[in-house]
């Protein structure tokens, strides 16, 4: 297969950057998107040019390292898959493919297609944890967990923190990411204890990092490679309102819209 690639090239964080057009021929339909980019990079290296920098690690869809905004969609056209799980057979022969980095003020470009996603880590640091050691695996039924809660918590825990929700959102909002983390912990007894403080702190951190606000377009749900459900954002909203409007003691911190 042959492809025309329009790729965002940017030397470093300060560089202005721009789209550069490349041609790749003899691409196997069974090669992954990254193998195709590896092929392009081989071409560039043999010509003495700087290869395209992009994030990747496990290449099996579980680590959350890969990104890329491909033809107007995070992780490309395949539903419920990361870029590393995307194969070239998903494209037409001769197609022009746009490859851009995640775009969000809170995700500055480091180089080419690599962005700094540590803003998501800062949200986690603000409350996405359990403060005490919750111990080893307890005996069955010593800590009762309703089955629907266990299922929903597990589904939310599938979030790999790749940032596709931010990239897809017209407002660059990480609500699906935060919703998944809130749900994952709040639905289980060990995480429930700190749920109120967690939601207040994580929302405050999210608002302070320059992300946009959720306007319920649901683009995130459509693009999430782990198919995290919008109900997690609803739960985040519910937990946030409850934590703000009902509390045992007066809490400090701002009030968001």
């Amino acid at each position, binding site marked *: 297969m042959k492809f025309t690639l*329009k790729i*965002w090239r940017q030397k470093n964080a300060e560089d202005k950057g721009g*789209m550069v057009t490349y041609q790749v021929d003899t691409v196997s339909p069974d090669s992954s998107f990254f193998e195709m980019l590896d092929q392009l990079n081989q071409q560039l290296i043999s010509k003495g040019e700087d290869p395209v920098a992009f994030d990747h690690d496990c290449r099996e869809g579980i680590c959350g390292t890969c990104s890329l*905004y491909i*033809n*107007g*969609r*995070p992780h490309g*056209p395949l539903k419920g898959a990361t870029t590393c799980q995307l194969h070239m057979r998903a494209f037409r022969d001769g197609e022009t493919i*746009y490859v*851009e980095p995640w*775009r*969000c*003020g*809170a995700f500055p470009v480091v180089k080419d297609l690599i962005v700094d996603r540590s803003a998501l880590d800062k949200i986690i640091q603000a409350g996405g944890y359990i403060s005490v050691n919750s111990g080893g695996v307890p005996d069955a039924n010593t800590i009762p967990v309703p089955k629907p809660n266990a299922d929903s918590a597990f589904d939310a825990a599938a979030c790999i923190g790749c940032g596709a929700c931010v990239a*897809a959102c*017209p*407002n*660059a*909002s990480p609500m699906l990411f935060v919703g998944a983390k809130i749900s994952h912990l709040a639905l289980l007894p060990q995480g429930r204890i700190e749920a109120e403080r967690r939601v207040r702190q994580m929302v405050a951190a999210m608002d302070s990092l*320059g*992300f*946009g*606000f*959720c*306007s*319920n*377009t*649901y*683009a995130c749900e*459509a*693009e999430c490679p782990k198919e995290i459900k*919008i*109900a997690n*954002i*609803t*739960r*985040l*909203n*519910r*937990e*946030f*309102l*409850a934590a703000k409007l009902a509390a045992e003691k007066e809490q400090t911190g701002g009030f968001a*819209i």
Partner: protein
Amino acid sequence: MALAGVFLLVFLAVHLGINLLLLADDGGKAFSAAAGFMGTHPVIRIFELALFGGFALHIAFGVIVSIRNRKSRPIRYQHRSLSETSPFSKYMMHTGMIVLLFLVLHFIDFYFIKIGVVSPPPGIGRHDFYSRAVALFSDPAYSAIYLFSFLVLGFHLNHALQAAAQTLGLNHPRFTPLIKAASALYAMIIAGGFMAIPLRFTLFN
């Protein structure tokens, strides 16, 4: 923004109820009586202030959130987004702006005349909303603007109720689909109801 929006949903239903009296074949008697009640009753006068507050809050929050949302992506994508979204949800600011323009026009045509800021056209009393409405709807250009504005409002409302439920954290496997359907139905009733009035005046007079 969600709470102010939900408040405005109630106002729209009341306003539509009164406006539909324009369709009654009684020379505007029922409509004028209802308009007179709304214009003079002390409780309604107080609620009018709450209504202006509701509009102000909804518009102010909408603008603040939109500005922040635009700023959050300083460098935009080269390729247009192909992500699937809830219908019209991406265009709430655009549809909202069109509705706001209509609201300004509506104020000039009715409210400012009522409070005496603008003098009414010759032959029409300051509180004679029926004759004013009939005169305006006899102009096809005005009717066209009116129809377009309410079509756009319908798109705005289609997302409104269900987005408000989402923002307020309401989610249920059975009720969420119902709320979405109710949201679409409400949008159709409001848009269709208001649009029926100029259609009746332009087509059947």
